């Protein structure tokens, strides 16, 4: 079975599992059949595969937001500044044409070389970045533009002025605004989906994740430092909290996995962009035309259902 087929199978299985409340014999037998097939293939991602995702998600040649913008949007106009204090370069925002319609796009942006990395603060946004994102979300809402967000950050910036300018509150309010928007929102985790800095722009109707991206509550190093008292145990930590796409899908946190070119997105930016573009279009077509109230209600219901408790 090819990797693609495996992915599709897992995706279907995860969806069916979530529907299990509906019961029904047909669904049950589907589920059983799929589960048997899955048992035959090697089962869940191994610790090694999880760590490979961590490495690929952070690969220095991995396509970043602006690499996708250049390949997927026409007439892109980048919008700068939070209209209050600054323009945070760790997060880009703008409007452009996607397959014939105007969309708004927000994404974290890492730098390619040392100079750009410093300028982009390694993709770690200040509150100013999230405020810029919020004003562009409002713009999208005002004009009925669908919103795409691309998530790729180690986390929101942990600095003195970031705290003084209200990092926590900015992340909270950005999520709140997304839960109120009446336009379709599609998010994709394209590299590192690091904690609060990631979820700040990922409260979407459809959340996608690239095959080798990671999505996590804390970095593997951070988790290892706290629970193992040794940041060097990052592999063990990653294996324990499972930030890979397959597990995210199985936990119901994402809706679909976006395939990458063989070997990873870093090997072929054009192909990676083509695959992402297709997934964005498919996800958007599922929700385009939905009434604003329905979008809001369903988006909130989706997040309402997240979590597993006893």
């Amino acid at each position, binding site marked *: 079975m090819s990797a693609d087929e495996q992915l599709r199978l897992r995706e279907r299985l995860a969806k069916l599992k979530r529907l299990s409340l509906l019961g029904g014999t047909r669904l049950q037998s589907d589920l059983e059949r799929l589960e048997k097939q899955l048992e035959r293939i090697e089962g869940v991602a191994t610790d090694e595969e999880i760590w490979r995702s961590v490495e690929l998600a952070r690969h220095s040649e991995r396509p970043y937001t602006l690499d996708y913008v250049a390949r997927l949007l026409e007439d892109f106009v980048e919008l700068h500044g939070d209209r209050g204090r600054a323009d945070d370069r760790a997060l880009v925002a703008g409007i452009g044409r996607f397959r014939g319609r105007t969309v708004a796009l927000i994404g974290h942006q890492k730098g390619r070389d040392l100079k750009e990395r410093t300028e982009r603060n390694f993709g770690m946004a200040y509150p100013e970045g999230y405020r810029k994102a919020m004003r562009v979300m409002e713009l999208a809402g005002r004009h009925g533009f669908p919103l795409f967000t691309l998530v790729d950050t180690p986390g929101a910036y942990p600095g003195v002025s970031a705290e003084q300018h209200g990092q926590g509150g900015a992340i*909270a309010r950005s999520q709140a605004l997304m839960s109120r928007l009446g336009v379709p929102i599609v998010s994709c985790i394209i590299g590192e989906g690091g904690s609060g800095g990631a979820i700040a722009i990922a409260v979407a109707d459809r959340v996608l994740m690239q095959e080798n991206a990671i999505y996590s509550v*804390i970095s593997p190093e951070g988790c290892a430092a706290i629970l193992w008292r040794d940041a060097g145990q990052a592999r063990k930590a990653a294996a324990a909290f499972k930030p890979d796409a397959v597990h995210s899908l199985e936990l119901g946190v994402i809706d679909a996995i976006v395939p990458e070119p063989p070997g990873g997105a870093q090997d072929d930016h054009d192909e990676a962009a083509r695959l992402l573009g297709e997934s964005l279009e498919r996800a958007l077509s599922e929700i385009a035309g939905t009434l604003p109230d329905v979008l809001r209600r369903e988006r909130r219901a989706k997040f309402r259902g997240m979590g597993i408790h006893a």
Partner: protein
Amino acid sequence: MAESRIDVSIERKDEPQPPEGKRHPNTCPSCGSHYRDEELEAALRVCRQCGHHFPMPARERIAHLADPGSFEEESAELRSADPLEFFDLRPYRERLAEAELQTGLGEAIVIGRATLDRHPCELSVMDFSFMGGSMGSAVGEKFVRACEGAGERGVPVISVTASGGARMQEGILSLMQLPKTVCAIEDLYDAGGSMISVMAHPTTAGVLASFASLGDVIVAEPGALLSFTGPRVVQQTTREKLPDDFGLAESNYRFGHVDAIVPRKELRPYLARLLRLFSRER
């Protein structure tokens, strides 16, 4: 010590500091005064010498805020599951069982209906002593139920937070409790409801970056650490010199992130006044 556990869920690059010398939990960390437990409890866990606010257990907080006999706990049976079968140096299930044994609480949050100065409200109170007040699926679920209950009954939510952030042992599901609680507040607001957020020490990371920051009114306790990233991690990551009041309630007040700093002894009348103002029977 509480302070050695604050930096949860942050990009920590270096090893944590060893915990500072063993201090008795009833010894004031600011002035060194020592109290018997019942003394401290009678004083609402505020140091009589210097005004330092000790952490307040959820049950005591509720007993203090709710009118006598008015509190009816909800969702008390709800417990955390272990969806990732998480195992670090010890299994997550063991940590949960130990926390329940030590605190007598089923989770790091207690919710229920109450009246405060005869005003009906919904209380949601966190307890830092249960796994650092960390938020996993069960904590998020209980907060959401508090909002839903309040919305249905048309009463305000009073939320008291004390949390190190999202609970690592539930991985990405803990992160999803941020948008989940945020959406619940938006639903509450859409239904005409209100929320008063009381930030106790410490309110950090994932809880600060979600429901705690979204109150109609945000109140902080004196000296509480309210930061997205804890001071030690900021220091280690940025090598910046930290101001003395880094992340404290007083600094947050100065920078415009909280509406007021209210000493614990004045909190109840302060909340009563807000409940009168938000009351629908105007």
